[in-house]
């Protein structure tokens, strides 16, 4: 008999004080999905960044809104969706990372999205039922996907 893969939905207020909880839950779910400690930490970081983006850009820092996180072990892949009902942020409008300008102009814009893209296999943004959905996917290596 195949064991059912875990999935979890978490509703949090749009406050950075809940990022620690987001990190803990994501890391535990990633470890449960078979990822090693270091990779689980990086997955937690990617979800931390996605949630921070929602708080800062979709909700503009308002703390009385809601963020939904859906974390799912789908067998061959680990998927996290970060859902908000704030303003639509076009990720293509986020400036690309330019290392040279970091120092000369103290630019840090785009670091979060860049980190997410480097850590995950896929990062997509879509609009669904008047909500923004950021979908983060990490594929497992075949040994961990069983």
């Amino acid at each position: 008999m195949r064991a059912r893969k875990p999935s979890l939905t978490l509703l949090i207020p749009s406050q950075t004080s809940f990022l620690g909880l987001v990190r803990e839950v994501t890391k535990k779910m990633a470890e449960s999905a078979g990822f090693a400690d270091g990779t689980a930490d990086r997955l937690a970081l990617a979800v931390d960044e996605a949630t921070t983006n929602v708080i800062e850009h979709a909700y503009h820092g308002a703390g009385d809104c809601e963020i939904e996180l859906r974390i799912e072990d789908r067998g061959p892949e680990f998927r996290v969706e970060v859902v908000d009902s704030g303003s639509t942020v076009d990720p293509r409008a986020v400036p690309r990372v330019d290392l040279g300008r970091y120092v000369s102009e103290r630019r840090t814009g785009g670091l979060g999205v860049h980190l997410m893209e480097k850590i995950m296999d896929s990062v997509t943004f879509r609009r669904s039922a008047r909500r923004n959905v950021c979908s983060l996917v990490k594929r497992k290596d075949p040994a961990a996907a069983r």
Partner: protein
Amino acid sequence: MAELTVETRDVEGVTLLYPKGFINAHTVRVFEGEIQKALAQGQFKIVVNCAGLAYIASAGLGAIMGAIEEIRGNGGDLRLANLNETVRNIFEILGFNRLYHIYPSELEAITSFRPAGAGS
């Protein structure tokens, strides 16, 4: 338990910071506050010992970026030591390992501030 604590101490005129926990958009103020405290005291030689750091998000990297110009402008530097696999990986992903000096140990980071020829 606090999500981030930052202990500090001074060795050979170098300010050592020991962040323990994780640095993200929520905890970055604690980290940033300790950097600013050192700068306010005229301490521009800083080593961040990352042994207790689980991860650093872009907000924390932004805090370093925000201070580095003032630090280097005053003849100092912010150097890093004891990065775990995750933190080293984050620095490499973003190319920060080309912007900052990173040392395997705290001692090597401290001695890197000694003038050339000063011996060990």
